[in-house]
């Protein structure tokens, strides 16, 4: 019998595969990115061109858009694995499902959360945000998007194999996203009115920590149910 692969090599392989699949269709990764840019640009179009109004809208608009773009890419997380039977194989893996799920979440974040963090400041400039605001925006998104991927994973797992998934995920997940949104946009708003963002950011950190603990467990359980 061959030597068995260690947990790390298996997890690495899971992560590498998800990233490889996504990169194979570069458009996938680029798409979340462009969605964010395009959707954020829709708001000024709808509201005429008052720069003051734009600046006031900016934190909520950018955060809500980031949230929606993360959410849109959720359906990709497990759905294709479910449709082609890979998920059954993952469940029958000799590694704990929780760890594999964690890797899949990480891959999702690397491919859809991280790019947003990088591009958000550029769009912020179009909304006339200042340097300090832009910094806080990037930092809050860095923590926030990771939390969004974690929480979203539960929704994605729960809605597997159900049609009209896109919208159903939205309903399941949006309420859970609200704390992330409130603290994230709150941090930027605080900076705009000249206050410190620390309070909001540490609350955001707490949400992230909670999500990190519970989400893989809940997702793994949901996946198992989806396959029964």
């Amino acid at each position, binding site marked *: 019998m061959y030597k068995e*692969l260690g947990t790390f090599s298996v997890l690495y*392989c899971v992560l590498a595969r998800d990233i490889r699949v996504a990169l194979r*269709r570069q458009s996938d990764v680029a798409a979340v990115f462009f969605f964010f840019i395009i959707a954020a640009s829709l708001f000024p179009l709808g509201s005429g061109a008052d720069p003051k109004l734009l600046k006031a809208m900016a934190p909520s608009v950018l955060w809500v858009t980031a949230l929606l773009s993360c959410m849109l890419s959720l359906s990709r997380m497990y759905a294709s694995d479910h449709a082609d039977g890979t998920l059954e194989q*993952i469940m*029958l893996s000799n590694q704990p499902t929780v760890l594999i799920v964690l890797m899949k979440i990480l891959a999702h974040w690397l491919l859809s959360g991280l790019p947003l963090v990088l591009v958000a400041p550029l769009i912020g400039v179009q909304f006339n945000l200042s340097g300090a605001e832009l910094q806080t925006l990037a930092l809050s998104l860095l923590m926030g998007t990771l939390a969004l991927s974690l929480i979203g994973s539960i929704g994605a797992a729960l809605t597997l194999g159900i049609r009209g998934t896109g919208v159903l995920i939205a309903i399941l997940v949006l309420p859970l996203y609200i704390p992330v949104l409130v603290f994230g946009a709150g941090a930027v708003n605080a900076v705009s009115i000249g206050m410190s963002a620390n309070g909001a950011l540490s609350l955001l950190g707490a949400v992230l920590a909670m999500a990190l603990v519970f989400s893989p467990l809940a997702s793994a359980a949901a996946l198992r149910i989806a396959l029964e």
Partner: protein
Amino acid sequence: MVFLANQYALTAEHVVGVRGERLLFEKLNFKCSNGTVLYLQGANGTGKTTLLRTLCGLSKPYAGSISWCGENINSLAEEYYKHVLYIGHLPGIKEDLTALENLQFSMALSGTPFHLLQATEVLKMLGLARGLNLPTRMLSQGQKRRVALARLWLQDSPLWVLDEPFTALDVAATELLKKKIETFANAGGMVIMTTHQEVIIDAPNFIQLRLDS
């Protein structure tokens, strides 16, 4: 194949299968040990797929228990899964990846190291020489099945659970697969399978089980 040395046994006791609100099979008892090929038969809708998925641990039996070397498979979990190789109605391959990448991934899931040369050889032997580096979406129905089945040549799980493995395969591939199952069983492996084609497997212990109600 080293697992010949180990003695394994899969035991089903009073297993009851229910889908929706309907009773499919009841009080099913059997025992598979090294060298057994259990061939499930039955008309469409009699519960073959349901039984196979239950035996793998993908769903829990409605009543009764399934045990592996004396321990309940649901409590063994990963301990049990690493001994099982399941190929169901769905091929379990990712259409964007090539055949080799797909194999590498499924083998990683089962903890088997991946050797490129060996995998290439198996795929070639299965007639996929041309498609090695194509995304599997570009393969025909039967070629996709072959990629999924390639794991049988590469992994060394002692228990195979195969749901209609001959589907979409042409005559040559069917023959290859049948031979492989026989070699495996003779080396001490266990196979649980279904198919609507007529097959007789030359194994140390060939059991036919009809599920008709």
